């Protein structure tokens, strides 16, 4: 059995991604078929954000990965000439 912390984090990730998927599916696929005077629309942002938010999040992810790689490579650089 994985440790309790691992299980907590793991199932937390599953629940979070499920929630995100359901919200995004309703936003993109189901809302256009619901009349605009229904109350459910006030739980969802305007439709433009359904494209801009994932794109910006993806760019931020790429940025973080790039910065991480730069930091790791910077820490592991060796001096050019030998010490003896």
């Amino acid at each position, binding site marked *: 059995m994985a440790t309790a912390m691992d299980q907590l*984090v793991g199932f937390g990730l599953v629940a979070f991604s499920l929630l995100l998927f359901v919200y*995004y599916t309703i936003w993109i696929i189901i809302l*256009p078929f619901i009349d605009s005077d229904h109350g459910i629309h006030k739980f969802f942002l305007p439709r433009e954000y359904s494209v801009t938010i994932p794109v910006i999040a993806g760019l931020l992810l790429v940025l973080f990965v790039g910065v991480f790689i730069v930091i790791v490579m910077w820490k592991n650089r060796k001096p050019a000439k030998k010490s003896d």
Partner: protein
Amino acid sequence: MTKLVQWLCGLALLGTAWATLALDPLGLHLPLPCQQVLWPFPVYLLVAFGCYSLATIGYRLATFNDCEAAAKELQEQIREARADLSRRGLNRSGEQGR
């Protein structure tokens, strides 16, 4: 045909289908809700794939099994190997030559 070319062909096919339906060069005039669903569809597929990846990682993390007995045995073997090497004269086998 390599896997990369296969994937690119599949993506090109899906992209062409999406562009044909969304940019409407043939003047088909789909009903408005269908058009509204269609426009963000590639982003939706990406987000769905991201959610699936995250869920898979989380699930595998939660159900990964520790092997207590094997870990103890491995530690014991490491200790024996260190003792054996230092006995044979190769001291400081754990350091990196600083």
